[in-house]
């Protein structure tokens, strides 16, 4: 079984192993950690503004008395969810658009690739920055996820397209064609599964890309809107006072880097396990 071989290779890969352990610890910290803290993330301690880390507030407090420990973990939860959702949507979109363009060819291909070119030329930062603060409260962060995903699938879809062009002529695809299986079914049953290595690697690296992208937009106030928090908004708030109150910056920034690093390590390990020929 190929999946078993891949799994064994993955577990033997030191980088991937450390990456998995680190990610597991971080996810546990984000989701289980808040139950051990003394405060809820919505609590405000009016007796402690900007207080340094101590036994009561483990990671210090913010300028309005929020507990840094609770609020940072809450922000990390949001960053993790955003990363996963964006990666899922954008890799799915890349697979579908690339496979359809490559398999159908002709004007479908031309139109889709033209759309890809257009999206690559449009400055994504600007468009997301203009739209996302207008979205208002409530489910706005889901729209933010959609926007981030909409601008991060194009390059992968080009790779998928060129690989589809090669797979299209394989015997098993031709056999399926002669059996009269509809074309969309061939794409989902025979073409996309054969690109799974590429897609899995891409999805993993998209997670870290999305986490950084979210933080980058939130850094300027164009991403997650208050009162909701993410690692990006926390880093933005913290960096303004980073010299005098380092705990405001150090904890969210450190966790962001740790998160991105562990996901990248897994991605690199996956690449080695799924695609031993590559040396990148």
């Amino acid at each position: 079984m190929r999946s078993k071989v891949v799994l064994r290779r993955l577990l033997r890969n030191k980088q991937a192993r450390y990456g998995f352990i680190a990610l597991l610890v971080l996810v546990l910290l984000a989701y289980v950690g808040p139950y051990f803290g003394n405060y809820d993330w919505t609590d405000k301690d009016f007796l402690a503004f900007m207080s340094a880390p101590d036994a009561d507030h483990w990671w210090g407090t913010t300028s309005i008395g929020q507990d840094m420990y609770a609020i940072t973990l809450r922000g990390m939860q949001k960053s993790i969810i955003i990363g996963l959702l964006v990666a899922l949507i954008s890799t799915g979109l890349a697979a579908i658009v690339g496979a359809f363009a490559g398999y159908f060819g002709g004007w479908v291909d031309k139109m889709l690739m033209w759309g890809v070119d257009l999206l690559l030329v449009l400055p994504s930062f600007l468009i997301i920055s203009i739209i996302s603060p207008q979205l208002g409260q409530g489910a706005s962060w889901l729209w933010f996820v959609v926007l981030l995903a909409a601008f991060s699938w194009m390059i992968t879809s080009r790779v998928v397209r060129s690989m589809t062009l090669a797979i299209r002529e394989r015997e098993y695809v031709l056999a399926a064609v002669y059996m009269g299986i509809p074309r969309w079914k061939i794409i989902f049953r025979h073409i996309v599964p054969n690109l799974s290595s590429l897609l899995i690697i891409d999805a993993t690296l998209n997670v870290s890309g999305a986490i950084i992208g979210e933080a980058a937009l939130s850094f300027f106030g164009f991403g997650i809107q208050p009162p909701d928090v993410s690692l990006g908004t926390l880093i933005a708030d913290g960096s303004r006072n980073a010299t005098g109150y380092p705990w405001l910056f150090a904890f969210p920034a450190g966790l962001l880097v740790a998160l991105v690093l562990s996901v990248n390590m897994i991605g690199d390990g996956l690449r080695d396990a799924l695609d031993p020929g590559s040396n990148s």
Partner: protein
Amino acid sequence: MGKYLLRRLAINVILVAIAASLAYMLAATTMNPRAAYEGRQPPVPEATIDATLNEYNLNDKVPVIQRYATWAGGVITGDFGKTWNGGSVNAEAGRRIMVSLRLMLIGTLLGFAVGVAVGAWSAVRQYKLSDRLTGVLSFVIMAIPVFVLATLLAIATYNLNQGVGHTLIEYTGEYNPKLAGWDQFVNRLNHLILPTISLSLGLIAYYSRIQRNMMLDVLNQDFVRTAMAKGLRRRTALIKHALRTALIPVATYFAFAFGTMFTGAIFTESIFSWHGMGAWLVDSIHQNDVNSVAAVTFFTAVCVLGAAFLSDVLVAALDPRVRVN
């Protein structure tokens, strides 16, 4: 070849036009330049606001199609309109492009040169301690977003300056306008240190990984062995034969980075208070500056497409196999 170039140019012109028009439409329908005039003390009469906004082609009471037509007519003749407070977008863009260029030229070149050198060096010393060390280091640097890196650098410099007792390294702005002549030149260089580090570290990490992989591909090939067999010194063989071939892919990335250099660095400029193109993008969104947003989009699209073209030309120039096909 001429036909191909013409077709490519035509497609690019259409892409730029669509990108800029979409950005204009989006900005014109969602942004509210009126807000900058409405909340003032003493209050400004509405008729005055309308007249001012009309003059700048920013009045939201005029149908968006009409505003678009005025804007597009201006752009075709090379006039990008007025900023939210009446300045010329063209003049502002010209000034800011130079600021971005002064900021990024050294950083981009340094990132490329050091990145290639580090990559080639660690490929030659594959699996030795130095190779592993640079590998881990670049992996970590690539995981640090530039706004975290820039803030860390600023904190470190602040503490260093506090420790020394005077401003050893500047960490904000482009230059001190009080100085003149040679002093000002030195002052400008001092202001460049931090932004250049924060720009080039990421580039070095990125280029060194690509260069290392390319170099490893080339090192075991026959022509390198032949070069050494015919009596070239190892150093000459590596630099003249191996490195030169392995440079092609990195050079195309570099051409791309060079072309997009004019669009500025959003985070580095904002954090270190340089008023270049990248900071303009953020400022114009915050100030509801519709025409500036459209101009930045137009300019970015031109730069990206120009850079893509530049990197294709460079591949053809460096790699004979591409030219033959």
